[in-house]
């Protein structure tokens, strides 16, 4: 095997006459687009950082030498109540190849617990108001050994934020935000939280204050006002969402809940350096003949497949992510290191804002793993996630235009997203104004008994979840002058309040209504993940 070259940092390319057409993700397909010469630029992500050579040893080292904490072994006693909570199916994206990092970390923690002789151990998927994980998904995350040892006896389970006996109210912050988390975590002598940091938004107090929480606490920061003040929520120091989570974290700590945080970062190796999708993380002018042949063959094959077959193929992809760092100990000290490590992979320095930002949205978002990417999730992936992947100031200027490429089908998974269907049909048909939606409809959906029942017993996202998705778009909606979706279902796009366009050229033409002639354009070549450090 040839030694890997040192990874190159991200790149901002000024488009010239020799720039080949650029790849746009387009759901379960792709588009190759030419950008106007002389006024366009493309931001390419950094190449994958090298993974740790021995991840298991690195994990053991982190547990033995934690930051601002005693070693994990010293925190355990035989007669203690131990809870291990872990990030749910929304991380990482796409799901990673086996063994999942969570499995490695949980096995290392359990090894120590077994050595100490701890009997009372519970393992909880910290999914807040997300859908429950299926057995297959749990097995993939924690591994068969852990699943078989704990799940049959009911000691490995999904968090249930609507269980009246399973949640504990811990008080309020000095800003009046209520704090409520899992009763098991509160009653435990130690809660070990196992995190995967895909983006800088993840981790820290958000792991427990959100992941093990419920609607009572979440509504204090998952709201329009907080989102519009978070600029951006990918930049924790400037994120109101994080500020509120941190305040709630203080209340949890002051209530005596002891948490040992284990955070991990992964590299950008989303599509692999070899294999059928490797060209998707290469710069276009570096595509070899084999890359082009693979791409053309893939597009040819996809054109003969039904949407559901295409979805099945793409969702079967497991990313060969590698662990780049692991740190454990006190939440805030750990998270500081984690954030730096995440930025080391993702940040790309960019000079100045742009009039038009373009992006190709892929087939997956945090909320449609093994599911349909419905129009609301298309909106939140573009306006909530990708738009907010900046530090400093937004990549697109205030009043600018965002052009997204995605088929945006009028299609929902009724098992996973039942309340999304009603939200789309009833709420968005009435208004797209986040403030009005929040005021008029949120409570009704959040407290709906049927949605609550589906969340607790089926595999449905909570009734209030589509509202949160729309709120996550609210900073972008407030900032942008216009949103255009290329290649989307026109009816679905209009329902979202956006403008449909058939081609990128049409969309650029339409954008001039808002930003004037000869606008500057910046394309976000994502995924693999990148974050613009805008000066």
């Amino acid at each position, binding site marked *: 095997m040839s030694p890997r070259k040192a990874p190159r940092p991200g790149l901002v390319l000024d*488009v010239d006459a*020799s720039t*080949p057409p650029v790849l746009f993700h387009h759901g379960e397909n792709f588009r*190759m687009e030419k950008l106007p010469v002389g006024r366009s630029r493309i931001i390419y992500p950094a190449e994958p950082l090298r993974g740790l050579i021995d991840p298991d040893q690195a994990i053991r080292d982190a547990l033995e030498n934690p930051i601002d904490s005693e070693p994990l072994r010293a925190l355990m006693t035989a007669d203690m109540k131990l809870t291990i909570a872990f990030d749910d199916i929304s991380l990482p994206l796409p799901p990673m190849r086996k063994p999942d990092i969570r499995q490695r970390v949980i096995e290392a923690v359990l090894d120590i617990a077994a050595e100490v002789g701890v009997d009372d151990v519970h393992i909880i998927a910290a999914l807040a108001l997300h859908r429950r994980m299926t057995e297959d998904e749990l097995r993939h995350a924690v591994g068969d050994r852990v699943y078989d040892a704990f799940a049959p006896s009911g000691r490995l389970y999904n968090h249930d934020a609507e269980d009246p006996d399973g949640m504990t109210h811990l008080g309020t912050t000095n800003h009046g935000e209520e704090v409520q988390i899992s009763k098991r975590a509160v009653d435990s002598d130690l809660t070990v939280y196992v995190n995967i940091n895909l983006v800088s938004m993840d981790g820290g107090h958000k792991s427990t204050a959100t992941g093990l929480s419920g609607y009572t606490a979440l509504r204090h920061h998952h709201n329009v006002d907080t989102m519009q003040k978070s600029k951006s929520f990918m930049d924790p120091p400037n994120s109101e969402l994080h500020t509120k989570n941190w305040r709630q974290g203080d209340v949890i700590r002051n209530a005596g809940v002891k948490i040992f945080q284990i955070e991990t970062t992964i590299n950008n190796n989303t599509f692999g350096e070899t294999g059928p999708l490797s060209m998707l993380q290469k*710069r276009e*002018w570096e595509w070899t003949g084999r*890359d082009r042949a693979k791409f053309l063959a893939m597009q040819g094959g996809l054109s003969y497949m039904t949407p559901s077959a295409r979805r099945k193929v793409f969702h079967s992809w497991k990313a060969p992510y590698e662990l780049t760092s692991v740190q454990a100990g006190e939440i805030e000290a750990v998270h500081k290191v984690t954030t730096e490590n995440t930025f080391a992979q993702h940040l790309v320095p960019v000079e100045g804002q742009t009039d038009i930002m373009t992006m190709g949205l892929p087939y997956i978002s945090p909320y449609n793993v093994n599911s349909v990417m419905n129009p609301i999730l298309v909106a939140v992936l573009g306006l909530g996630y990708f738009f907010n992947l900046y530090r400093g100031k937004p990549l697109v200027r205030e009043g600018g235009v965002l052009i997204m490429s995605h088929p945006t089908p009028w299609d929902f998974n009724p098992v996973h997203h039942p309340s999304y269907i009603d939200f789309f049909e009833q709420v968005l048909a009435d208004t797209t104004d986040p403030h009005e939606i929040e005021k008029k409809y949120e409570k009704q959906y959040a407290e709906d008994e049927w949605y609550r029942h589906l969340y607790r017993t089926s595999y449905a996202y909570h009734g209030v979840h589509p509202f949160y998705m729309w709120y996550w778009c609210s900073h972008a909606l407030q900032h942008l002058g216009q949103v255009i979706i290329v290649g989307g279902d026109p009816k679905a796009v209009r329902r979202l309040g956006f403008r449909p366009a058939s081609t990128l050229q049409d969309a650029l033409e339409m954008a001039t209504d808002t930003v004037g002639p000869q606008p500057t354009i910046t394309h976000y070549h994502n995924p693999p993940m990148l974050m613009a450090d805008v000066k």
Partner: protein
Amino acid sequence: MTAVSNYRAKVSQRLAGTEVPLVGKLRKPLQALPFPYTAPTVPQTVEAPEKQSVTGTNFPTDWARTEPARRTRAVLIDTMVRPVMAGLAQPTKRGMDRLHGLEGPAVFAANHHSHVDTPLLLSSLPMPWRHRVVIGAAADYFFGTRVTGVLSALVIGAIPIDRTKISRASTDLARDLIDEGWSLVVFPEGGRSPDGWGQPFRGGAAFIAQRTSVPVVPVHIEGTGRILRKGKSTPTPSRTTITFGEPMYCDPDEDARAFNDRIEARVAELADEAMTNWWDARKRAHAQDTPLLTGPQTATWRRVWELDADRPRRNGPKSRSWPK
């Protein structure tokens, strides 16, 4: 009228040398297709990517050691190469008994006169080495193009070896294969003899054997230069002799250079044995009087003269040939 004027235009283009060739005409519509149907252009502000050559030492040969390729090669060697060599080279094999105690992979190091050496040695190797052996072949010659690379890898199980230097890629590949149980045939002279005499041995075989702690089996091939010497394209049938020597191990305190000298000396002794007889060759070896493989260091014509004078004749009457 139009046809006539078209014809005249074509003739004038041809006379002026501006006519577009047929290949160009066919390629033109393809070039009009956009990326990714055609190769991408490189933006002016970035450095053009380094082209990773898939020929030479980078030529992939893993596929040629898969079970189907191995079986294909074994069938080719046993049903085609061996009969052809039996007719063309009429080989006499000597010293096979010296390999009786040998187990596991080994490096076979032989002198090199002709392209016939490879198929002859490959078909003459005893089992089990015959079907689990790779040939160290000049990367620049045998793997210079994809076609020759594929044929070399499939038919003779060749792996690319950089003959200009001991390259890391070549030695790593050879070491990995030996670790996997493959034996290796190397021609340490680095190329065919230009004049019938041998060339100094290069250190690759000794270096690999030293690093992998496997024995080197010295081999001398006599007579293939008469069949198809360098520069000749039509083979002439002739008798050949292949002499295998005792497996040699690198001493713990011996460096690769000294080991290489020992291998070269041993092949020279085998050459002497093939040309004369074992007893005389042994006596000269003990007296350190074994003729060098590289021949006398004199004028070119005298080297050729000397070569012909000493060779036993099996094909027709003894005669001298003037240098050509």
